[in-house]
């Protein structure tokens, strides 16, 4: 049985696809797709300004405003840095987690969101295991919603803090970004791309600033169609030295390292490999970032990892703690970025242009 699609006999008009709606609230940050480069630059500038501001002055910006953190997944970095960021601006925060709330009793996301709004929450920071949950919460509550990770979909503040880290290393002092800011830069992202919201957010953001994103991993964790995922991103280029902004795929980790100024590693969950019949030792042999590998193929590169790291799996302890690692810088940058994002959530005007 042949599976080829017969060529269409004629060109037929078909119903148009409606443009995806913008977020309802201009303070929301659901994905980075809707953020213009101007808005991005503004957030980066605000992150730096807020970080440098006197803490007591800074506390007046959102004094006594109410921010709810709604977490359906465990989190250390994201939850704590959002909380510290909001508190640094003077906001009151409250944490609702799925383990100790009516969510356990079967309350829907919509009802939990409406309840938080009725309690006075002015913005909700959501971490959720289902892709798209942040859209649902925003449409139900019409509050500014900050997506702190939705399923396998997006983790926009992670990509922003990664960008801030990358700029600090490669373009020190730059906060105004353009389509050329990262021209000539190759960022490799290696590991479980398929299940990673961090990978999706970064691979859709960085090419807009001129970077070339090199995705690396075995086909079980990195399907070929990943290269077609972004709107406006050129189709996959052939060959490892094609250059230019866009997304490319390679299965050869050492070739990826050789080309990268930024080496981003992703966490590997052993149980996921088991589900895919991938051998852990084979994976490590091909894709673990080790000291010798880094020294041989990317001795000048900066190493990033969104955390949590699994030492000895995707990355060795020596590399994680080594001089090329910027993993803890990323964490620190998270607080500054999230201050800017929370400030925007509570100061963006409904009437004003959508940022």
């Amino acid at each position, binding site marked *: *049985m042949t599976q080829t*699609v*017969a060529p269409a006999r004629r060109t037929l008009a*078909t*119903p148009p696809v409606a443009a995806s709606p913008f977020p309802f609230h201009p303070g929301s940050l659901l994905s980075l797709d809707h953020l213009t480069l101007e808005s991005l630059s503004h957030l980066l500038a605000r992150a730096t300004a807020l970080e440098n501001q006197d803490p007591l002055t800074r506390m007046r910006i959102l004094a006594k405003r109410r921010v709810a953190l709604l977490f359906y997944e465990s989190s250390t970095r994201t939850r704590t840095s959002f909380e510290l960021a909001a508190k640094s601006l003077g906001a009151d925060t409250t944490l609702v987690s799925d383990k100790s709330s009516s969510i356990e009793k079967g309350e829907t996301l919509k009802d939990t969101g409406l309840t938080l709004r009725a309690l006075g929450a002015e913005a909700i920071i959501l971490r959720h295991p289902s892709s798209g*949950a942040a859209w*649902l919460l925003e449409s139900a509550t019409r509050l500014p919603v900050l997506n702190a990770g939705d399923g396998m979909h997006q983790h926009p503040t992670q990509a922003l803090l990664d960008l801030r880290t990358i700029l600090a290393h490669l373009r020190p002092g730059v906060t105004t970004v353009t389509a050329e800011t990262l021209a000539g830069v190759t960022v490799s992202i290696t590991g479980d791309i*398929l299940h990673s919201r961090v990978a999706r957010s970064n691979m859709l953001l960085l090419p807009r600033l001129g970077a070339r994103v090199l995705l690396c991993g075995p086909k079980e964790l990195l399907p070929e169609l990943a290269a077609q995922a972004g709107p406006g991103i050129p189709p996959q280029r052939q060959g490892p030295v094609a250059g230019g902004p866009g997304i490319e795929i390679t299965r050869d980790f050492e070739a990826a390292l050789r080309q990268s100024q930024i080496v981003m590693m992703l966490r590997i969950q052993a149980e996921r490999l088991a*589900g895919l019949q991938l051998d852990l030792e084979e994976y490590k042999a091909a894709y673990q970032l080790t000291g010798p590998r880094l020294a041989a193929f990317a001795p000048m590169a900066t190493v990033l990892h969104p955390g949590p790291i699994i030492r000895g799996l995707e990355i060795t302890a020596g590399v994680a703690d080594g001089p090329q690692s910027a993993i803890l810088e990323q964490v620190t940058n998270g607080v500054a970025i999230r201050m800017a994002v929370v400030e925007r959530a509570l100061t963006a005007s409904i009437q004003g242009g959508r940022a």
Partner: protein
Amino acid sequence: MTALIIRGGHLIDPAGGVDALKDILLKDGRVAEIAGPGKLKAADGAEVLDATGLTVAPGLIDMHVHLREPGQTHKETIATGTAAAAAGGFTSVAAMPNTSPVNDSPETTRWMQAPERGAVVRVFPIAAATRGSKGEVVNDYVALKAAGAVAVSDDGLPILKDSVMREALAAASRVGLTVIQHAEDTRLTHTANWSASMNAGAVAFKLGLRGMSNEAESAIVERDIRMVAELREARPHLHVAHVSTAASVAAVRQARRNGLRVSCEAAPHHFLLTDEHVGLYDTNAKMCPPLRSSADRDALIEALLDGVIDAIATDHAPHAVHEKEVEFERAPNGIIGLETALGLSLRWLHKEWKLPLGRVLNLLSAQPAALLNLKGRGTLAVGSFADVVVFDPKAEWTYRAREGKSKSHNSPFDGWTMQGKVRWTISEGRIAYGTCGAADGACAPSSTIEGV
């Protein structure tokens, strides 16, 4: 029973070979007489509907709906579902067995057809192919057919075991029933930890959603066709529900060339929409099989135009608002379709893609009637059931899901422009939808039909 005359309309009855201005007399639930304008003989005392400028056609037949009764009456009932059918021009609907309890018994099959259900058009139950639709034990098709089942299917819970599918095809062929298969290898679309929720592809990757591959559908279609070929002597009839992929259509086309009794249906959403219409997690664009790629959609259009697809069926699947207002992965599959099938088919298949009106109507009436062996339906030949739809073929209108007759509103076509406005739907001689044409407006707008 009063007689009814539909006067001045353009009668299109492809099965009866009529395409002309005709008056038609309906009497005692049957078509009594057809004559040129003003030429009806036995017209005394009949109520008259003025169909000037309108098209008069055999009532539409939807061979794939979910009426949710018994068991899930918050989504739909037989009364509301058939009211929606009538509003969409349908006079017969074949109801899938995934009710609660599953319709796998003659008792439930009869219960669904009882007058107490309040149906305004005819309901033909499709009984479960296996006990509890669990895919293990083939039901008693003799008893189910005697109770009124017109086909058997485990829709939504496809029969995966080869031995069970082979037995179902053989048993159904012995009693002259069709086996309808929802073709999905659920071992590929569900695991203990996750369920796929849309078409596999770049859109699913970008949205971070697990995908259902085309192969999960076409592999079952191809396996089932192999079984029909193995059982060639018994002439089993396999009907593939809601085909959605180019490979499935190709498999059906080839099976027919090989002389096998294999038919298939397509749903309007599959020949109109693609996975891009999921947009930002629109749960009204979530169904199974999922909206596919544009290449698959285009293959379906071609197959409708060249006749490989036998019927348009809606897979009308009502769900309450709160059930769809959840995370995309958690939302139930399915959309309603009874009130939009004709409007979409005329707008796109006929007006845009130039399929002649008679062929569009065949896909919606005569052909599904033949597939389900519904005698005296799908045509307006004298003596057949007085199942009629009268519509204004030129009228454009905007569909508003919340204003529909269905109890549920889960449609991706809300706000879409439809072509062809149903004016009257007549089920076995009674007006099931539309207001009466009498000057004094005395007749009831609708009434339930008698049970079997």
